[in-house]
């Protein structure tokens, strides 16, 4: 095992008790500080796989090592300090009667000192902009704020790895962006980020590596550019590249893949369009 390898799945299979095989022969290694997006159609096994990373699920065949240790005999509570999982629906994990209590819950359960908990809670509330709502009942918060609170709860355990299950679902664009900002900051601090999402522009703009799941298997893996260059194959996996990517492909861009608006404008101006005629354009 290399020094900075933190998750390794070898021939991992998982079947639900009813016999439904949800994961088949997953081989995957994740190293420290990576920013990995898991994409794939509903039911392709993304969530099932990520739930193996913190021991919520255990493989029925094959193995998974997290920080060098097999999860089979590990308790979820032991793994929670290393791999934090933010549920798709924040309401699945919130149950205290105030924001402050909610954030303090994890460290309290892990037996942190009172003063340390207080300090931790304070800095996290500041960081996520929830300090004015510390007394508020979690269910009185907007969805966006509940989502941030769910992140805060996981932050309080200071794990090395953060797994986010569809963190921007149900958010408007700016709400989604502000959550992504928090996630990007965690990554900048050296945390490993795993994110499950259907939002392909988000993947294109934030992730460094993409794992495409299909029917319980890894169908495709690579950088966003490598993955989104295969628009036609992605379609068969029920996925759609970002609009700018498809646009550039439609215009006949070959050899490189456009991922976001900035790249598209640059490519168009440098390679595709003649220089604008001065004085003619710029209609209001």
């Amino acid at each position, binding site marked *: 095992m290399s020094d900075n390898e933190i998750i390794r799945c070898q021939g991992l299979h998982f079947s639900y008790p009813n016999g439904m095989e949800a994961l088949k022969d997953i081989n995957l290694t994740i190293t420290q500080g990576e920013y990995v997006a898991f994409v794939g159609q*509903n039911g392709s096994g993304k969530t099932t796989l990520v739930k193996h990373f913190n021991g919520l699920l255990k493989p029925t065949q094959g193995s998974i090592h997290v920080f060098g240790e097999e999860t089979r005999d590990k308790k979820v509570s032991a793994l929670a300090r290393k791999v934090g999982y933010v549920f798709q629906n924040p309401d699945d994990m919130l149950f205290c009667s105030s924001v402050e209590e909610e954030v303090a819950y994890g460290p309290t359960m892990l037996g942190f000192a009172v003063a340390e908990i207080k300090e931790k809670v304070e800095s996290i509330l500041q960081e996520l902009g929830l300090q004015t709502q510390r007394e508020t009942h979690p269910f009185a918060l*907007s969805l966006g704020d509940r989502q941030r609170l769910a992140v805060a709860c996981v932050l309080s355990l200071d794990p090395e790895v953060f797994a986010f299950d569809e963190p921007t679902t149900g958010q408007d664009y700016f709400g989604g962006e502000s959550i992504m900002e928090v996630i990007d900051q965690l990554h900048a601090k050296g945390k490993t980020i795993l994110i499950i999402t*259907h939002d392909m522009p988000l993947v294109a703009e934030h992730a460094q590596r993409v794992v495409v799941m299909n029917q319980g298997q890894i169908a495709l893996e690579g950088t966003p550019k490598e993955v989104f260059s295969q628009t036609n194959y992605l379609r068969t996996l029920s*996925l759609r590249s*970002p609009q700018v990517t498809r646009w550039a492909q439609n215009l006949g861009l070959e050899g490189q893949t456009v991922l976001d608006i900035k790249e598209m404008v640059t490519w168009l101006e440098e390679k595709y369009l003649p220089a604008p005629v001065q004085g003619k354009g710029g209609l209001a």
Partner: protein
Amino acid sequence: MQSIVEFRAVTFSYPRADKPAIKDISFSLYPGEFSAMIGPTGAGKSTLCYCFNGVVPQLFSGTLNGTVIVSGCDTCQMDIPVLAQHVGLVVQNARTQLFNVTVLQEVGFGCENLGWPRQKIQKRVEEALAFVGLSGYESRQPSALSGGQQQRVAIACVLAMDPEILVLDEPTSELDPIGSEQVMEVIARLNRELGKTIFMVTHDMEFVAKYASRVLVLNECCLMEDGIPQDIFGKEDLLRAARIRPPQVCEVSQQLRRHGYSIPRIPISLEEGVETLRRLHDER
């Protein structure tokens, strides 16, 4: 043309709320229109949807001022079962509204409650399932279907009652991209082939550009704008205020225009975008 839906100065407040959920909303919908409502989370979009079939204020109590007229009925005066035959509401996260053991029972449930004769119900359910592409799924369990299939079951449930108007609250928000496209195609065909009036809330601007003939922008409980997609997506300040990001095709075109390119009409769909850039490309 005679309107099919009319909101006249509608203001609604939930009990004990310190401000209204929607405020002074006035607009009319005409038969066969496909309208999209967009706006940030918390703007009041879902509340507005509940006004169409009388759920607000009859089931969700509160104070409603103004009048909502749907197919000639005042929604405050008319019983909800009667309104359900004029307007079908597919709520946000529709899987929560599925509860029967089989798809057949689920889709027939509304009609049964209207006391229709058995043969009529069977015919309507059959037609509705065929329309959403789920013939052959009659004996399947709704909860075991994929997200996209569940959403189409939910649409079939209201379609079976044959309403003139369908209101859909974020019909694709939790679906993978291709599942979303399939649901949108069904909605488009409801409009095109059956002449249904469609009112859809969504955060997916690519779908708005592709399918809607009219866009209503709701922000901070008020109707800010009402117009054709081309006009709405051209208003950058309005979109920023309402926390809406236009389709990537629009954003790129607007930047090019600012850089001096002559783009008299901002494209809003991928097809229009390809056409616009090809024209600029050939203009040497």
